């Protein structure tokens, strides 16, 4: 049973560029959450998607947007990249209502130069 898979694993971008990160949830899961983990910090909630809609959002600017597809996979888009966007981006999946049992992917390490 495949767990949560994320691609790519590493990415290097320059300031001002746009980036798209991808996530496939664990089989049977219908909810995807995205977290940003900066160096030395804990994961910080960006947003959550369920039934192709953004269900809840953390304290992140509109430059961060997402999408969920009918097969429950999800994308995270970040526009106008800043140096401070350099971080590990984690995708987590769960069943709606069982949000506390998040299953995380290994993450995408984004470096903005």
């Amino acid at each position, binding site marked *: 049973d495949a767990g949560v898979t994320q691609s790519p694993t590493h990415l290097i971008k320059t300031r001002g560029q746009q980036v798209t990160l991808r996530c496939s949830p664990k089989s049977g899961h219908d909810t995807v*959450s995205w977290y940003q983990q900066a160096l030395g910090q804990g994961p910080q909630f960006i947003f959550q998607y369920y039934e192709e809609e953004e269900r809840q959002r953390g304290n992140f600017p509109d430059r961060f947007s997402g999408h969920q597809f009918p097969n429950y996979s999800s994308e995270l888009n970040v526009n106008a990249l800043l140096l401070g966007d350099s971080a590990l981006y984690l995708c987590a999946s769960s069943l709606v209502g069982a*949000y506390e049992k998040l299953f*995380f992917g290994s993450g995408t390490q984004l470096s903005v130069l």
Partner: protein
Amino acid sequence: DQQVKQNSPSLSVQEGRISILNCDYTNSMFDYFLWYKKYPAEGPTFLISISSIKDKNEDGRFTVFLNKSAKHLSLHIVPSQPGDSAVYFCAASEGGDDKIIFGKGTRLHILP
């Protein structure tokens, strides 16, 4: 504004002894608490949780204690094993809220 605080960045414990990881929170509306464990190059994995209606939850070698009046929880690992060396994140959520708030983590080193 850190709502979940793990004030010890690292902790070293002898193999076989008890590891105690601490966590404080500021939001009195939190009613569900979790611990996640993270190995390098892997995502966090769920370890154990506790609801605010309980003060203790046990799962094998892992026990979480909750002191609501002090807004404090702790994770006890007994006995500590080499495979327990990892970063441990304390996390919390508010009733019905899908957003989970994480602390900065504590790196646990189990010494041979």
